[in-house]
């Protein structure tokens, strides 16, 4: 049945796919930009026509799950594990009753559950219509129209202009779509932070083959150090009193300096892991990284100056889309250049066989040191951005759960793949946002995905491969872009 539908569908889109074959990225970018403009222009009215209260924020993904926010699963096993205030006479029948109610609510959620809450199908259909009309159709039309012209135009461009024009369009799309100061911006900021975290952890776990499980610890150091700097210097807060410098100096220079200082502090904390890594590997190093995560948390818990366990209040609300974009791109550039340099080959060599690498003249200590430093530096900057987005930090944020989140992203994307990590961070952020209406269930779904991933696709989405973007460059210009770890595809793990 399903495969029949899929066949039908693929036959339906086959001619389209054929026509789009080999279309350069820029054409899609233009198409999406067109869609973004159209949404700005008529999106709101169109959403109203479809009886949405507001424009669907993330392509309607959140709206689709919203009807299920009333589902309460706690009655299923609740009667078997009653709290003292609960009266249980017959747990089986009570549980059966709860399951019955649950099914009832679920069916209602599918169809119709009251004037204010439309059912799932209703939302789904409207979301599909909205996305088709606002995003898909305009994009397709523009792509089909501009395809030929742009492809030819791109061949004439030198490499730097090509990359520049892609970046400019990318920026326009992001700001046009997400610069609303609302949910989209929030989600994009988290996405950027998550990209920084997952890519930086991938450097250690994927490229170097170590197993670091305490990434949130470095994030914490960065978050606290940068927050303290901006608060002491530029903000009037209850904790540190009036600012030492005129607050108007804070942006942009103070913020940049604070973020970089946070990164450097995190890198110094990274030494705590880097040095033991000279002696220990594998499980024991994992334990060391874990312990460092806990120790960082524990030390902050005991620093009364920064509020101890109660956290640091009144961090300036400075992080916005532009800052996040800037630092995300800088981090990506840093890692990309690092792993594609000769030094990066050394990192990969350490993963494949440390002893052999040593024999081949790779200074394994230096490699490990640099990898851990860069990784924790970026995590620290991500922490700084995070703190200035939330305006509040406390040690509880940077626990093992946060570290696990980053691990999920890295493994979802695939070891040793930057594009994998980026895409995984994007998917993960959207997933978390989309599942938000499901409350607790969100944290059932996420580990489930992780487990299934480990069992059925342990290499992740892009294990040791990179996504190849069709930048439409002439052959000679794109020659340089051959991904280094392609060769190591076959040799996995320990």
């Amino acid at each position, binding site marked *: 049945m399903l495969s029949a539908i899929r066949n039908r569908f693929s036959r*339906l889109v086959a001619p389209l796919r054929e026509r789009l074959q080999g279309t350069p990225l820029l054409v899609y970018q233009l198409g999406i930009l067109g869609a973004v403009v159209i949404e700005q222009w008529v999106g709101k009215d169109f959403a109203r026509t*479809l*009886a949405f209260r507001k424009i669907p*924020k993330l392509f309607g993904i959140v709206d689709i799950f919203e009807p299920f926010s009333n589902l309460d699963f706690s009655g299923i096993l609740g009667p078997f594990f009653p*709290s*003292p*205030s609960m009266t249980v006479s017959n747990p089986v029948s009570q549980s059966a009753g709860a399951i019955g109610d649950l099914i009832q609510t679920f069916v209602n959620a*599918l*169809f*119709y559950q009251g*004037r*204010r*809450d*439309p*059912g799932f*199908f*209703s939302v789904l*259909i*409207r979301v599909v*219509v909205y996305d088709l009309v606002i995003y898909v159709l305009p994009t397709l039309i523009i792509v089909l129209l501009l395809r030929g012209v742009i492809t030819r135009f791109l061949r004439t461009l030198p490499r730097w202009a090509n990359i520049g024009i892609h970046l400019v369009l990318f920026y326009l799309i992001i700001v046009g779509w997400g610069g609303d*100061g*609302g*949910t989209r*911006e*929030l989600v994009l900021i988290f996405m950027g932070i998550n990209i920084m975290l997952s890519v930086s952890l991938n450097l250690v776990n994927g490229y170097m083959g170590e197993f670091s499980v305490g990434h949130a610890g470095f994030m914490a150091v960065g978050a606290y150090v940068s927050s303290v700097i901006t608060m002491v210097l530029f903000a009037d807060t*209850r904790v540190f009193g009036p600012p030492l410098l005129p607050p108007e100096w804070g942006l942009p220079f103070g913020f940049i300096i604070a973020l970089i200082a946070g990164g450097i502090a995190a890198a110094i904390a990274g030494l705590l892991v880097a040095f033991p890594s000279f002696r220990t590997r594998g499980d024991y190093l994992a334990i060391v990284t874990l312990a460092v995560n806990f120790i960082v948390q524990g030390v902050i*818990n005991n620093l009364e100056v920064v509020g*101890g*366990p*109660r*956290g640091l*209040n*009144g961090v300036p*609300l400075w992080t916005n889309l532009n800052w996040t974009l800037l630092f995300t791109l800088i981090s990506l550039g840093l890692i990309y250049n690092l792993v594609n340099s000769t030094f990066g080959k050394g990192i990969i060599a350490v993963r494949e066989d440390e002893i052999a690498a040593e024999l081949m003249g790779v200074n394994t200590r230096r490699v490990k040191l640099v990898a851990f430093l860069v990784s924790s530096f970026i995590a620290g900057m991500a922490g700084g951005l995070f703190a200035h987005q*939330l*305006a*509040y*930090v*406390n040690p*509880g*944020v940077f626990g093992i759960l946060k570290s696990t989140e980053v691990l999920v992203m890295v493994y979802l994307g695939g070891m040793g793949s930057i594009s994998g990590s980026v895409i995984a961070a994007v998917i993960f952020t959207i997933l978390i946002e989309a599942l938000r209406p499901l*409350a*607790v269930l969100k944290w059932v779904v996420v580990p489930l995905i992780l487990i299934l991933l480990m069992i059925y696709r342990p290499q992740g989405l892009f294990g040791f491969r990179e996504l190849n973007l069709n930048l439409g460059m002439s052959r000679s210009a794109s020659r340089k872009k051959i991904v280094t770890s392609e060769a190591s595809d076959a040799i996995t793990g320990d």
Partner: protein
Amino acid sequence: MNKRLLTLVLVLAIILPVFGGLPAAAQDECDFVGEAVIGVIAPLTGDIPKVGESTVQAAEMAVDEINAECGLEIDGENYEVIIVVEDNESKAESSVAAATRLIVDEEVIAIIGPQSSKQAVPTGQVANDRETPMISPWSTNPNTTLDRPWVFRVAFLDPFQGPVDANFAKEEFGAETAAVLYDIASDYPKGLAENFRDAAEEAGIEIVAFESFTTGDTDFSSQLTNIIAAEPDVIFTPQYYNEVPLIVQQARELGYEGPIIGSDSWGTPDLLDLCGDACNGLFFSTHYAPDIATDVAQTFIQAYEERYDERPDDVAALTYDAFQMLFTAIENAQSLEREDIRDALASIELFEGVTGIMSFDEQGDPIKCAVIIQIQDGEFTYYDSACPPGFPPEDMGSEESGS
């Protein structure tokens, strides 16, 4: 290709109405012209889920009541009140994130919550920075509202509650010495423990042990052994209903037989079930006692009991009061703009709620009475009241002055 598209459109046209279709327009007798969206932040999961449950129950009741009377009336037009509930998992960071989401995403006109000071103090900062009115029903730590013109509350403050408890220890038990056990990782216990210590020392009680633990600890034997070795007359522990049973039972197990006093965080009925006999006879200070309720309170208690089949606890009462205060402010302001609501909230001078009469000082903090409750045979029973000096003003209040 075209034929297929046509089919698709036709199928959609059929399916759309079948699957509930578009949400129907308002069909009630009230002619709502718009909505007033209010955010609620409550600890639905985490350490104190009962607090979250009470919050949501009281909120839904308050909202249903006002919508039954055709919502908020502004310039002769009716606005339907809608609440958006966010769970903060009883964590400060989640609470801050929830507030950001409510303000930025849901575009709420005001936030009710969070309840515990641990969350209310940082969340108040965000609400203040993002210029959205916030009323914390249950938070008693002064820092929640201090220098924050956008943040309000309905509960009394710990600098008032601390002395109430200290005086009670002195008068009821003739305490000469006292010990404190509190959670250092949480604003409310930490603040109140310090207020109690200062007040006790002023009242001539010596603090012989001032022991702390961290949120999530379950083994207090080491701290309690320290405390018992110092031989205090009373132990004061301003903790929540998931920790009080552990503290009380372990203290008894380690041989302590004296009184243990608590604060308003004890007042969740689940405490009675979790603690059992061990808590029988203990005292704590809180916001209101259902058994001596005023007329306003009686109406609320009856409606609540009818609807949820349980007695409203202090969280429910305070949350309900917070909503009434917000509604009053909105109707006074005749506006749904955040700024107008803030101004109207700030200009409320006297307010009679379920939890008694309150007047407001220049920080926007209420001045009101506290009651002392004794746990008797699995019930919270009214024992005594304590009011600030010269309060309630004139003869508005029915309660006698305790201290």
